[in-house]
């Protein structure tokens, strides 16, 4: 029998050891002279079970095993060849029971349709799966206006976070008069907790490129840039290869598919600045300047890169384009809601069982996303909240779990849809600490242009630090809200305008936790170290003196074989005694 083995080699897979698994399989097949095709693919989204190995036979019956280790390669291949199919650690299959078969049924994959299925470094794989057909259709049958009206009719909204209608954006750039126009793909995915764009670029780079070429044709641009974070070396590698291959096949370059349309595409690597995800800052960065936002208007559609009309869209937005062209706007509108058609990719992370990448129709309730697609909580600790939209977003509490995911419903909660990062938190997460974490991030990443953003976030952070140390006052909460209001009003770009969101939403939904820190000097989740207290249980302490030796500030005293005591005045709450005690005698409260 002939069969194919695919190994997921995206960043997540490689971090879990998929590289070694791939080489072991290669070696095993060679040494045992087994006729099987070994292929590389990227991420199917089940990152929690990496490394993933898929077996496919000539009847297209597929079995994907998860948590694969190099030691079990031989057994796995032999049992497959002898038709003794094991269901242990079977994650996905169209033949036998897979633990995540239901998970996949709850999804609708448009953007991720090829991810984890094709070899991202092979343009032939992409072509076999319908790649570049939309481009051919557009160049042969569509006028520029036709493309724009299809995208307008589809109702596609920008997936970078703000949700501006893509067709309208393209129309502005199309109508701008100029001898030169640019199209830019924003792949500067900076939100901590978000990895949708990385996975799409690593797993299906041609799909993004095809969307960009169609966009360039529609607005009349002949040059484009993909601005990608330098923290994503594999995505950049796959993009470079994809651009080269697409150029060789004549999809990029002069007179594409023998038409008058020509288009050049470059990659710009970011250099590490979160604010460059903002479109005007991103353009400043491409121009070689410090990435600081510019005043709008003029909008990029009138005066963008080097003063020329420019259209910027996010990776996921471009990844939707070819599907819409191939299947039509009406078909696209069958998914999602009236005002937010289509699907949305989310990166599930944190205390959720199935952390990874999923794509669901807009309008799916958060509860369904977390419990049915995401498999629920990782530990037995109950769900506390979900953070949406990264540093610009907010925390949604369990009372609002029936909120559906679309731009308008999420905005009503005070959070934002953002680019799609979803970090699930349980009772062991301190919400004040989370607010502190995000503000610390935006404060460091503020470019410093606007006073309110530069200094206001710093003052807010100082107050939050005070609260997490148990030194806060109740008036601080009012000051936080007042500062937040002014920062929102006084900032030029999205970074400042949304920076207070994590604080405002936690204040709104988790005020009791702030109060506990301020009034009772306790951190209910036990996260804020300054509020922790370490004590030794005299019943359990054997007087082994280990903690005395390890304590960095000599805060622990006691005679050998007698219970020890921690001097609370001296203790710096480092937790070393708690970590080293072999008798479970040190108690943390």
């Amino acid at each position: 029998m002939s069969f194919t083995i695919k190994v997921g080699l995206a960043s997540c897979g490689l971090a879990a050891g998929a590289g070694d698994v791939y080489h072991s399989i290669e070696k095993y097949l060679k040494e045992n002279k087994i006729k099987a095709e070994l292929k590389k693919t990227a991420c199917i989204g089940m990152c929690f079970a990496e490394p993933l190995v898929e077996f496919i036979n000539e009847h297209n019956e597929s079995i994907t095993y998860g948590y694969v280790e190099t030691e079990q390669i031989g057994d796995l291949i032999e049992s497959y060849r002898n038709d003794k199919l094991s269901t242990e650690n079977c994650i996905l299959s169209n033949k036998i029971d897979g633990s995540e078969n239901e998970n996949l049924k709850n999804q609708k994959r448009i953007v991720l349709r090829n991810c984890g299925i094709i070899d991202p470094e092979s343009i032939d794989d992409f072509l076999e799966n319908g790649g570049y057909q939309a481009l051919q259709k557009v160049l042969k049958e569509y006028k520029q206006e036709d493309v724009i009206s299809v995208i307008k009719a589809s109702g596609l909204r920008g997936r970078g976070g703000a949700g501006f209608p893509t067709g309208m954006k393209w129309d502005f750039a199309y109508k701008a008069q100029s001898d030169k126009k640019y199209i830019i793909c924003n792949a500067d995915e900076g939100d901590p907790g978000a990895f949708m764009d990385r996975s799409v670029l690593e797993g299906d780079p041609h799909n993004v490129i095809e969307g960009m070429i169609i966009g360039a044709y529609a607005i009349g641009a002949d040059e484009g840039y993909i601005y990608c974070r330098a923290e994503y070396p594999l995505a950049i590698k796959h993009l470079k290869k994809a651009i080269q291959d697409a150029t060789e096949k004549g999809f990029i370059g002069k007179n594409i598919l023998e038409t008058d349309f020509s288009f050049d595409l470059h990659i710009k690597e970011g250099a590490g600045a979160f604010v460059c995800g903002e479109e005007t800052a991103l353009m400043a960065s491409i121009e070689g300047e410090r990435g600081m936002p510019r005043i709008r208007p003029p909008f990029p559609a009138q005066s963008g890169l080097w003063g020329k009309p420019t259209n910027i869209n996010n990776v996921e937005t471009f990844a939707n384009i070819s599907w819409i062209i191939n299947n039509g706007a009406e078909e696209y509108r069958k998914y999602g809601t009236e005002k937010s058609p289509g699907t949305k990719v989310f990166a599930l992370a944190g205390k959720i069982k199935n952390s990874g990448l999923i794509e669901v129709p807009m309008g799916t309730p958060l509860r369904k996303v977390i419990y049915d697609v995401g498999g629920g909580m990782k530990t037995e600790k109950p769900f506390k909240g979900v953070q949406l939209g990264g540093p610009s977003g907010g925390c949604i509490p369990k009372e609002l779990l029936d909120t559906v995911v679309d731009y308008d419903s999420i905005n009503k909660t005070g959070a934002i849809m953002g680019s799609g990062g979803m970090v699930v938190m349980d009772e062991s997460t301190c919400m004040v600490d989370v607010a502190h974490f995000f503000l610390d991030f935006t404060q460091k990443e503020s470019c410093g242009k606007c006073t309110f953003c530069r200094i206001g976030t710093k003052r807010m952070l100082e107050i939050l630090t005070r609260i997490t140390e148990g030194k806060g006052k109740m008036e601080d909460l009012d000051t936080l809200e007042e500062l937040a209001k002014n920062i929102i009003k006084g900032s030029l770009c999205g970074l400042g305008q949304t920076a207070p969101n994590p604080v405002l939403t936690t204040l709104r939904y988790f005020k009791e936790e702030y109060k506990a820190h301020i009034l009772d000097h306790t951190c209910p989740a036990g996260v804020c170290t300054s509020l922790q207290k370490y004590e030794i249980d005299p019943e359990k302490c054997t007087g082994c003196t280990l903690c005395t030796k390890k304590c960095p500030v000599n805060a622990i005293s006691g005679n050998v074989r007698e219970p020890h005591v921690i001097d609370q005045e001296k203790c710096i709450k480092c937790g070393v005694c708690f970590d080293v005690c072999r008798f479970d005698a040190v108690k943390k409260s």
Partner: protein
Amino acid sequence: MMKNKKEIDQVINKFNGKNGALIPLLQEVQALESYLSKETMRYISEKTGIKIAQIYGVATFYTMFRLKPQGKHIIRVCQGTACHVSGANQILKEIRDELKLDGEEDTTKDGRFTLMEVACLGCCSLAPVIMVNDETHGKLTPEKIPNILKKYD
């Protein structure tokens, strides 16, 4: 002292006169030198005619540019949301202890490692995560750290 003057000249010639070339130019020079010294930046300024203030401005704005000599291996500790809630701080503390880095120090005395905190490496599903050079290590616990560091000498 600049070690790779000839190669730096080649990089400068490659980008000279091109629009928006400063960032990729500095990236390539840094790849050769491991960091951007004052001397290097001054040299680039002389050769390209770009004002030294602009070069310094760009080099200090972006976190990828390093102005001090770096260790042989770069450890990036992810401080993204998922890593934060999964205990990234314990991982950071363990690395600092293991490498005997005090206070603000980020490079070991023997020049073997430089430790950096980064925003998000995008491997949130395997949190907490660190990256040593170009290799990502996921699902970490403080106990796993010593063995990982041993691999790099």
